[in-house]
C-alpha cells in the first residue's frame, strides 16, 4: 500500500531536529534510512503524523576510533559504510561480523546502524551486538544528552529507553579486549531474512576462558544475554565439551516463542546449534583481529 499521509520535515541542523522532536515527539518518527519505518507505514502498522528526515544533518555520518580504542558510530552511518570500515573491523569486530547478516545488500545501502538499534527489532542482529558488547547509546534532546547502557536500553518489543523527544545520535562500542574473538551465527529461512534464532558471541581466552558473551536475537521480545551459560564457560578450556555444556544451559534457560516460521521447540534446538557454532567460530578468530 501507499504510505499514509504525514507532515514531512527536513531539518538542516541538529538543534532544529531536536526542536522538532520536542514539539512533535509523541506523534513523530525519525526518518534516517527508512528501511524499517517505511515498510511499517506501507503496511499501515504505523501512522506517525510527522516524519523528521535527519538525512541532511551534518556531522552524523562519521565512524571514529578514540585514543583508547572506543568506536563511535554516528546516526547517519549506513550499514554499507560500516560494513566496509576497517576501523570497525579492527576495533569492533562483532559489529563487522553482524553486518553481512543485516537485511540484503540493497537494504544496507540505506539502513543505518543507529536506526537498527533504535528500532530494536528483537530478531535483528545489531541490538544483540550492542547488548553483547555493553555498548553505550547517546540520546540527545533539547534538554541535553543521556548515555544509556545497552542493558538498560532495550525495554520491550520495538520499545527502547529513548524518550519521544530524543534522537539516538551515536552508539559507542567499548575498546575491544585483548585475546577476544567474535562471531555471529544465525539460522534464517533465506539469507538476509530476520533470524529464527541467532546469537552474537564473544569469547576471551588466556590459558582458559576468561569471559564470554552470548547475546540472542529471535529468542524473546528483546535481545537477551544467556548469563548462566556465559558464566559456565569461565575457567574452562575452549573446547567442544565446554561449548556443549553452554549450549545445554542455553536450551534449558531460553524461553523462545513460536510463530509461523518456527515452533518454540525448534527455536530452542536452534539456540543450541548457534551457540556451539558461534563459540567455536569466535574462538578460532582470537588473534586474527585488530
Amino acid at each position, binding site marked *: 500500500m501507499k504510505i499514509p499521509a504525514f*507532515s514531512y520535515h527536513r531539518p538542516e541542523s541538529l538543534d532544529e531536529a531536536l526542536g522538532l522532536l520536542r514539539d512533535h515527539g509523541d506523534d513523530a518518527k525519525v526518518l534516517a534510512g*527508512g528501511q524499517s519505518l517505511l515498510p511499517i507505514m506501507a503496511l499501515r502498522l504505523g501512522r506517525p503524523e510527522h516524519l523528521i528526515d535527519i538525512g541532511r544533518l551534518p556531522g552524523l555520518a562519521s565512524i571514529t576510533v578514540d585514543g583508547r580504542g572506543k568506536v563511535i558510530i554516528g546516526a547517519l552511518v549506513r550499514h554499507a559504510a560500516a560494513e566496509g570500515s576497517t576501523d570497525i573491523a579492527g576495533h569492533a569486530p562483532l559489529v563487522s561480523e553482524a553486518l553481512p547478516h543485516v537485511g540484503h545488500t540493497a537494504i544496507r*545501502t540505506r539502513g543505518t546502524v543507529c536506526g537498527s538499534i533504535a528500532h530494536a527489532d528483537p530478531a535483528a542482529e545489531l541490538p544483540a551486538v550492542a547488548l553483547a558488547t555493553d555498548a553505550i547509546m547517546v540520546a540527545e534532546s533539547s534538554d541535553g544528552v543521556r548515555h544509556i547502557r545497552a542493558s538498560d536500553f532495550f525495554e520491550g518489543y520495538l520499545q527502547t529507553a529513548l524518550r519521544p523527544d530524543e534522537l539516538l545520535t551515536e552508539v559507542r562500542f567499548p575498546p575491544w579486549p585483548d585475546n577476544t574473538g567474535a562471531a555471529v551465527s544465525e539460522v534464517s529461512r533465506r539469507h538476509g531474512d530476520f533470524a529464527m534464532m541467532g546469537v552474537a558471541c564473544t569469547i576471551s581466552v588466556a590459558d582458559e576462558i576468561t569471559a564470554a558473551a552470548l547475546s540472542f536475537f529471535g529468542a524473546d521480545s528483546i535481545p537477551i544475554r544467556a548469563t548462566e551459560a556465559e558464566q559456565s564457560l569461565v575457567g574452562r578450556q575452549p573446547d567442544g565439551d565446554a561449548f556443549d555444556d553452554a549450549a545445554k544451559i542455553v536450551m534449558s534457560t531460553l524461553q523462545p516463542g513460536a510463530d509461523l516460521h518456527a515452533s518454540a521447540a525448534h527455536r530452542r534446538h536452534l539456540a543450541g546449534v548457534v551457540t556451539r557454532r558461534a563459540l567455536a567460530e569466535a574462538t578460532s578468530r582470537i588473534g586474527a583481529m585488530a
Partner: protein
Amino acid sequence: MTLAGDTLTISVTVNGETTELTVETRRMLSDVIRDDLGLTGTHLGCEHGVCGACTILLDGRPARSCLMLAAQADGSEITTIEGLASTDGTMHPVQQAMHDSHGFQCAFCASGFMLTTVALLAAEPKPSRERIRRELSGNLCRCTGYQSIIDGVETAVALIDTEGSDR
C-alpha cells in the same frame, strides 16, 4: 516546514540526465520514477521492501526505490533499467547474458535482478556462485527457481571477461 500534501522541488540525475522535479513529500521514489518520469521498467511488486523488483542503483549501489521518499533522493544519481543499454540500443553485457542464457521467464523481477547484478560485478568482477546467491538473496523470482538467473550472472562474468569491458 513543509506540511502533508505539500511539495518539494528536488534535483535528481536519472540515467545521466539531471532533472528538477516538484514532488509531493509523501510520494515514494518508485512512483516518481514510474509515473512522473515514465520509466516503467522499474517494477513494483510488494511495495514494502521484500521482493526487490523496484531495485535501482542509487549513487552506484542497489537500493529499494519503494523504501525511499522521492524527497530523500534529492541530489542523488539514479540508474534505472532504462539506463543500462547504450544509446544505440546495444544491450549491457548483463542484459545480453541474461538474454543468451534465458535467465528470466515472465521477467517482472528482471530489472531488479540485473541492476543488483551490475552493482555486484562492479564490486566483485568474478564472484563465486555462493556469493552470487547471497547477493541476489534480496530479489524474488516466482518463475525460474533461480538457477537460470545465477547461470545468467555467470554468463555475464564470462562475457565481460572476453569483451574486456568494464561497463
